């Protein structure tokens, strides 16, 4: 059995270095071709006619006016007469035409009659949900009733975080060409290897006949795992149009209406503690909606977030079905919501105890699953945000309208590598190819693969040709749940070690050194520790003559933890320092700090970028981001980017990131990083606002209206 383990931390030449991403130059120069950029010969442009009603039955569809228009190539009814539609934006007809403008004109010309049915699009008022609300059972641990009866201090609060959308800048969609018995697809997807399988069934052709290509993609965040209805329709339109390629990417309004949302989460929470700050009891009644199917995914085992070992708890959840677009995974599914609900309730309890929330989180660290890690991270983050100097009891008592406060949010995540296979090829000319059916979403997967291969072969990263984004490469998992880094680094490492083993076997008799005594360093193959007995990489590969080495490596998640290359269980802490103008209600972020562990860090530069990005996403969700539904119209009122607001470059304050890079963290192996830092930021910001203004703003995003509302309730109380 070859030794696949990582070189010792102090012996690594490339892994652990701050390396600029390989695709940086093509992306920063506009030369990177995303699939939505492609204009293949004979391209047709497609669009969707969608339903404007939240709940309706289709009485009739007349597509003739569209079919008769000049330039229209194919029209397909997706939702037939009699279909009951459950949310506005549902796809009704797909049209392909010579130009996008003609396709849009044709969609407008189609006449659809609906029987409009009653709808519900709001879930924040659980009492109004009636039969649309489904309780999903109660979880009890310990004796919560006794804990609350015995409690020296209790706190109660209500909290809410609305539905948000993924708002991928490259919209969902694809170019598909179905000619003869073959389908070529250029989608925007997080799952290159799995895309043929999800397209095969609806098209009724074997997945082996479907070939997927994707070099770059413009954001997914959990919403682009499978082929969607529009991808299927693009294929069908292509077939109907005689095999011409069809481009179907959603317009912005449709993207924000039906291409996935993060579920909301609302809660009534009660907490109990001893006077000394010992956390003793938890009770939460939560409700949420992820669209028509209800959902919400607020797993009871995650409550109270990170502090799950609190001895007494009662947890209830109710899923509410509404007539709105369906939930999809959203960077750390359910965790940001649960972190926000729970950390807010714990901050309120700490305030009731007149205790610093830092002290409360530290004091109760033994109730977390990784007490030592959280203790160290809380301490580090507190130092970075100057907690001791800046913290005050709830409510900034200084004069003037600007109130400043500090808050904490915590995160936890699994992040074990997914199944991944990789093929490494070494040619006699010394060139090396590493191919795997993964994808680079902007997380620098391409760069990580190159770093691992280069480390193993003793070459520079520029000497490795990376192939990904092609479904004909060895199968690699979907990029979701922070599973990619673990999967691709293990499969790449194993394939490279296996290929190197073949080179060693070949050279052993030639160099008169046993194969297991050879090593690859600095572009040479040499006897271990003896550069005088060596051969350059080129000389070594030349010995291959007419042969080519091709070896595979595989990550099997079940076996991975015992192999020691990768692991699961990331921890992190975010803290926020905010200023709130209590006259205008405007919240300004001064500073956010993030301390994050993800085991062995392959590339600190791009890892930090992941954390910066996650903190910035948290700023959006905490301050501006919210899908607004109108109960009368039943529609999304802000399916655009003026009113579906993302933070801009001036809105995020100063962000400081500290990656835990130590021998102790390193020896855990590689752990996924995408999700965890996207979790705690909303709680940190919301808690900082409560600390600043002296009152809890129950609902995020913390708009001026909500901040002023919370302040005026207090004054009235």
């Amino acid at each position: 059995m070859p030794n696949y383990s990582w070189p010792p931390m102090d012996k690594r030449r490339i892994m652990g270095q701050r390396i600029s991403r390989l695709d940086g130059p093509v992306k920063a120069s506009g030369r990177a071709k995303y699939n939505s950029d492609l204009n293949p010969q004979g391209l047709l442009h497609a669009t969707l006619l969608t339903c404007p009603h939240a709940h309706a039955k289709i009485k009739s569809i007349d597509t003739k006016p569209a079919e008769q228009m000049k330039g229209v190539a194919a029209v397909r009814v997706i939702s037939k007469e009699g279909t009951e539609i459950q949310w506005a934006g549902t796809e009704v007809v797909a049209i392909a035409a010579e130009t996008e403008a003609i396709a849009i004109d044709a969609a407008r010309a189609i006449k659809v009659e609906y029987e409009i049915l009653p709808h519900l699009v709001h879930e924040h008022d659980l009492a109004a949900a009636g039969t649309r609300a489904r309780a999903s059972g109660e979880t009890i641990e310990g004796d919560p009733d006794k804990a609350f009866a015995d409690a020296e201090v209790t706190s109660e609060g209500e909290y809410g975080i609305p539905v948000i959308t993924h708002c991928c800048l490259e919209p969902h969609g694809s170019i598909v060409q179905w000619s003869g018995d073959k389908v070529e697809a250029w989608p925007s997807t997080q799952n290159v290897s799995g895309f043929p399988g999800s397209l095969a069934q609806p098209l009724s052709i074997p997945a082996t006949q479907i070939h997927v290509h994707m070099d770059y993609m413009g954001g997914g965040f959990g919403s682009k795992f499978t082929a969607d209805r529009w991808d299927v329709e693009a294929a069908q339109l292509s077939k109907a149009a005689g095999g011409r390629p069809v481009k179907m990417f959603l317009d912005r309004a449709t993207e924000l209406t039906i291409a996935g949302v993060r579920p909301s989460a609302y809660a009534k929470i009660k907490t109990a503690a001893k006077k000394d700050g010992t956390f003793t009891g938890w009770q939460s009644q939560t409700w949420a909606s992820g669209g028509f199917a209800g959902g919400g995914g607020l797993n009871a085992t995650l409550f109270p977030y990170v502090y799950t070992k609190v001895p007494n708890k009662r947890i209830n959840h109710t899923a509410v079905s509404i007539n709105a677009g369906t939930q999809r995974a959203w960077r750390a599914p359910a965790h940001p919501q649960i972190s926000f609900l729970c950390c807010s309730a714990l901050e309120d309890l700490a305030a009731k105890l007149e205790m610093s929330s830092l002290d409360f989180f530290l004091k109760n660290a033994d109730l977390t699953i990784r007490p030592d890690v959280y203790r160290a991270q809380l301490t580090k983050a507190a130092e970075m945000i100057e907690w001791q100097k800046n913290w005050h009891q709830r409510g900034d008592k200084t004069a003037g309208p600007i109130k400043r406060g500090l808050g904490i949010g915590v995160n936890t995540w699994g992040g074990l590598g997914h199944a991944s296979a990789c093929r490494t090829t070494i040619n006699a000319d010394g060139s090396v190819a590493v191919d795997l059916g993964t994808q680079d979403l902007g997380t620098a997967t391409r760069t990580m693969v190159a770093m691992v291969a280069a480390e193993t072969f003793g070459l520079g990263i520029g000497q490795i040709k990376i192939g990904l984004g092609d479904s004909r490469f060895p199968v690699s998992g979907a990029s979701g749940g922070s599973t990619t880094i673990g999967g691709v680094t293990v499969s790449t490492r194993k394939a490279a070690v296996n290929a190197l083993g073949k080179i060693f076997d070949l050279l052993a008799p030639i160099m008169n050194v046993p194969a297991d005594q050879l090593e690859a360093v600095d572009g040479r193959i040499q006897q271990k520790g003896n550069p005088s007995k060596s051969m350059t990489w080129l000389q070594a590969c030349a010995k291959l003559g007419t042969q080519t080495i091709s070896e595979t490596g595989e990550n099997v998640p079940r076996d991975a933890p015992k192999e020691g290359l990768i692991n699961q269980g990331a921890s992190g802490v975010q803290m926020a320092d905010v200023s709130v103008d209590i006259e205008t209600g405007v919240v300004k972020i001064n500073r956010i700090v993030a301390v994050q562990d993800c085991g062995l860090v392959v590339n600190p530069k791009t890892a930090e970028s992941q954390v910066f990005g996650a903190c910035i996403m948290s700023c959006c969700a905490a301050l501006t981001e919210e899908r607004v539904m109108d109960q009368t119209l039943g529609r999304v009122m802000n399916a655009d980017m003026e009113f579906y607001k993302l933070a801009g470059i001036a809105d995020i304050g100063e962000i400081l990131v500290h990656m835990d890079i130590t021998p102790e963290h390193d020896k855990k192996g590689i752990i996924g990083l995408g999700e965890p830092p996207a979790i705690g930021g909303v709680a940190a910001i919301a808690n900082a606002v409560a600390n600043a203004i002296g009152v809890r703003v129950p609902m995020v995003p913390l708009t001026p209206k909500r901040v002023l509302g919370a302040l005026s309730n207090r004054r009235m109380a």
Partner: protein
Amino acid sequence: MNPKDEGKKKRRSAFSRRGFLQGFGAGTGVLATGVLAPEQAEAAPATPVQGPGEVAITLTINGKPQNVKVEPRATLCDTLRTALDVTGAKRVCDRGTCGACTVIVDKKVVYGCTVLAIDAAGKRIETIEGLAVAPKLHPVSKAFWDNDAQQCGYCTPGFVMAAKGFLDRNPNPTLEQVKKGLGGNLCRCGTYVGIRKAVLQAAKEMQGGRNA
């Protein structure tokens, strides 16, 4: 620019989003850059009606005249991307909010989705493709790479062009000016920390180049 084009531009500007923003004092970050410089809503002389069918125009893109037939309703962004296969500028919000389609027209930074292609005829259009010839990188692009100011990269070409236009007017900006100057572009992955550093680095390098 011929007087005809000038007239068209002025007529359009009376109803443009930038005029609206200006009037209501919103989008100060953008205005401060000169990206959305004040335009006067003057009464315009009558101009001949174009369309509704396709019309032949010439767009001067990165110094090269290119003939193209477009419907008068086609935006500059769509015309570049689809008819001319110039795809650095991306279509994201498609209504003048996110800046992913940022290009420079007659030295002014504009959103390509809010300019009609026919209005851009006869003007100097600069796109990211014109910044440097592959494999060379413009200092702004290089600074974005060095500072990891991109993840998925879909907003990046727009940001690079906005930064280029901003630095042309503000060669030696402070961090605060950078924050205001690039307020007209949005990123979803959250690359602003890198972008701030990148623009400051590019400013230094471009100045260095000039003074050297």
